[in-house]
Each structure stands twice: as C-alpha cells, then as structure tokens.
C-alpha cells in the first residue's frame, strides 16, 4: 500500500517535471531568437541568399513541431504502459 502510494507520487513527480522543465527549456530556446536578433548583429547577414534573421525565425517556428512530436509519442506510450 505504502509502496503503491510511493510509486504513484513518483509518477506524478516525473510527469510534472517533464511538463515544467520541458516547457521552460522550450521557452528559453525560443526566446533566444528574438533576444539574439534584437541585441546582436549575428543574424544581420545572409545564408545562401536568404536573410539569417529569417532563418532564425524559421527555426523558432519549426522546432516546436519536433518538441510536440517527441512529447506526444512519449505521453501516448506512458498512458499505454501497464
């Protein structure tokens, strides 16, 4: 009974940590794009004819898709596991 309760609490802790730390990491990675494009000149140039600023913007738009894919795959497995 006590062991079950302990496992249950540990599961909830894991779940909450993934949500909060995953969310915080994603937010920091995202905010790096506007902060760096505003505060530095690193993205003022060009990469293959395309503005580096637009490439950074495209990264900010696209990387959340990878995060969503990884999370949904993990969460679906988590719920399916017995």
């Amino acid at each position: 009974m006590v062991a079950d309760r302990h496992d249950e609490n540990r599961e909830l802790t894991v779940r909450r940590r993934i949500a909060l730390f995953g969310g915080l990491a994603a937010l920091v990675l995202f905010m790096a794009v506007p902060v760096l494009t505003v505060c530095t000149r690193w993205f003022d140039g060009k990469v293959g004819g395309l503005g580096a600023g637009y490439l950074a913007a495209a990264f900010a738009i696209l990387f959340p898709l990878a995060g969503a894919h990884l999370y949904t795959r993990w969460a679906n497995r988590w719920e399916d596991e017995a």
Partner: protein
Amino acid sequence: MNVLAVSVVGAIVAVTLAITSFAARRNRSTDDHYVAGGRITGWQNGLALAGDQLSAASFLGITGAVALTGFSGVYLSLGIPIAYLLVLLVIAEPLRNLGRFTLADAVAARFEGRLLRGVLAVASLVLSLVYMVVQFVGAGALAQLLLGVSFPVAVLGIGVLMTLYTCLGGMVGTTYIQVFKAILLIVTVLALFVTVLARTGGNPIGAMVEAERTHGAAVVTPAHTSATTGLSNISLNLGMALGIMGLPHVMVRFLTVRDAKAARGSAKLAMWIYAAFFLVLPIFGYAALNEVGRARILRDNPGGNLAVARLAEVAGGNVLFAIVVGVVMATILAVLAGLSIASSGAAAHDLYNIAIHQGRMSQRRQLAVGRLAGIGSSVVAIALALGARTWNIAFLANEAFAIAASTTMPVLLLTIYWRGFNRVGATAGLVGGLVVSVGLVLVGPDVLGAHHLFPLSVPALVSVPAGFLCCWLGSLAGRGRPEAAGVAYDELAARAFPRRGTRRAEPELIG
C-alpha cells in the same frame, strides 16, 4: 461594389448559416452549448483550433506589418507554434481533466470561492473583449474596401451574424464553422502562395530577394534602431509564447475533446498548420511590398491591414481577390464565434450562475442566460471597435496575449503545479496581473501615442513577472488561513495528470 467578392462572401455566410441551423438541433444542454458535449474528435478539434487561432489579426495584420515595417513584422509570426508546444506540455491535459465549461472551472477544482470565480470571469471577459475588438476592426476595414459600406454598418452586420451563430449553434456550431473556415483558409493560402511563387519564378524566397533589391537590405534584416524597439519585440514574443495558455476561447477548445490523447493530437495537428501558415505570411508581406507598393497599402489602411487582399488582387486578379476577401470574412466570423462562446461562459456560468447564484440555476435558465450574455458581450465589443478602427490589429491582438500571460496564465499554471499556492494568491495574481497589464497598455504608446508614460506597447516583459509576483505575495499572505488552502494538492495532481497505463486500464475512454 465588387459583385464577385460580395457573391463569395454571401455564399460563405449562407454555408455558415446552414451549418448553424444543423448544429442548433444538437445544441440542447449547457454541456452542448459550452463544450459540444465533449464529443469532438482530435482531428476536428485540431482544425477548429487552427480555425480559432488563425485570425484576421494574423492573416491581415502580419502581412501588413511585414510590408510596412520589414523584419519587425516577422516577429509577429514567431510566437504561436511555441505557444502551442507550451500548451501541449504544460496545460492542455490537466485542463482537460480538471475543467468543465470554462477556465475558472479548472481553478475551482482546487479553490472554491465566489470572489475568485468572479475575478476569473472578469479577467476572461476582458481578454475575450479585447480579442473581439481586433476581429471587428479587421472585419470593418475589409468590408469598407469590399462593399463601400461605412465601418459602423459593417461591424454591426458581422456582430449580428456572430450572435446568431453562437446563440443557436453553441459550441457545436462554432466548432463546425471553425473547421470549415480552417479548410477554406488552408486552401486559399496555398493558392495565393502558388500564385506568388509563379510571379517569382518558382523561388519561395523570391519576394524577399526582390524586396531587398528594390527597398534595400534594411527591410529583410532585424532592425537595431533603439533599445525600446528591441525590448518591444522581446516583450511581444514573451507575451505571445505565454499568453495562449491563458486565453479562454482557445483553452476552452481542450474541454470539447473526449480524452487526453485527443487533446494532444489536436494540438499537434494545429501546430503543423500554424508552422506552414506563419512561414508563408512574411513572404506574402514582402510580395505585397513589391507588387502593391507601400503608398497604396498605407492609403487603403494606415495599419496595413488590407495588404494581403490587395496582393491577391494584383497577383491573382479579381477571382483570387474575391476568394481572399470571402475567406477573411469567414475567418473573422469563426474566431468571433469562439470568443462569444468563451465570454458568454465566463459571464453566464462563472459570474451569474456560480458567483452570484451559487450554482443553483436550472440547466434551462443557464442556457438562456448564456445566450443573453453572448448578445451582451457582442454589443460591448462593437462599441469598443468603433473607437479602434485605425489600429494595426496584429499589435492589438498581442496586447490581449500579454494580458492573458499576466493574469489567467500564472493562476492556471500555479494552480496545477505549485503545492504552496492558495486562493488568496490566485485572487491577488488575477487582480494584480490585470491591473498592471491593462494599466500599462492604457499608459503605453498604442493608447497615449507620443505622450506615453510606459514605452512598450506590449507590456509582457513587466506585467508577466508582476502577475507571478502578485500570486506569490498573495500566497504568502494567505498561508495562515486554512480555508484558503483548497483541495489537497496531491488529490488535485492525481486528477490532473493521466497515470501510467491509464488508457490500457480504461479502454472505453479511447472512444
């Protein structure tokens, strides 16, 4: 008058009215009216989320902002995909498991109290009203261009349609209309993109290259004009990334699905649509600058809100122009319908039924009051829109994100994740966050112009920490009051988060 464009708009309105009529037969209870009875599938909700989120502010405002301000406009297109990743990771599942009709229901799963419920309802109403004003301004500007009718007449016409949709069809009708609009918008954006591509020799970045050649490198590179401009862009993105988690009309969509898996699947589908949409909008902005010209865009509307419609006219002729105008009108109607449902839920369910009548109203009376509240919020939003007609609506929408990120978002987040949070902290966070964020908007440049007292038009950089600080200080103040502690945190967390093996243990939930 452009007869073809009017015909397309008329046809789209006729289809939406037919959808509403069909949905009205399934809109019988408060569950149906506010959350479509929880029967919406993942893919339907994903399309409806896209229909709800991809507003006139995005389609019209971002294109216009890129055409008029260059790369500074691109900042407006960054925040939505990350915002939905945060929704997916942090809020969607617990909200789906704790909530019933509104955001306040999820908070009430931990903290009872009429004052808190009332404050949450007021915050939700303020957020929905600001967002409704954005949609009405877009609708009015577009109808002026299309029909030559006055701005007030156009806004009133749209208001009547919105009220019909939500009063009769409820969330069922709103969902179907949002799905219909999302499909229309995807097809139209694709058609416009192909047309723009054809004019730039098939080069996806041809419009940007041409804009740089014609107008100089400054239009495609980040501006470093002043510290205030830079901070504004950072604040804007912080508000967008965090604000969606607190927007009632978006978050309520996660209460319409059957289970947590459907909630996740719908967010993921919506994110794919957003990514494609926000990658091409800057291209449309540069194409509008090249093809339509800055002077013409400014003459149509000082905020640049009609740039995308003009681009469609120049690039694809009257047929594409008519389709874009029709789809933008459908976009506005669909978003307004979602906003109206969320605001009527806050007014009728949270404020009137729970905060005032302590939850004693009958189902039938709740439904009637919900419909009346929808009409009331529409009237207030129309009155406010009449005073905001010249504003760039993308910036106005971002102020709504900042207010949400400073009020409802911290309270929802801490309710779900912080053991030490209590009812006093929740109330203090809502009131403090609302006062600081709305106050800073009112003394900022969008309202006071050159005589502003606060330099940023989007106050998230200051107001979000202020919202969290108020929550923390309030929680410290309420720590010695047992009645403010609410439901035991472990009990709430067990309800909020799906456990390992949940779906195997409860296969009927898969639906």
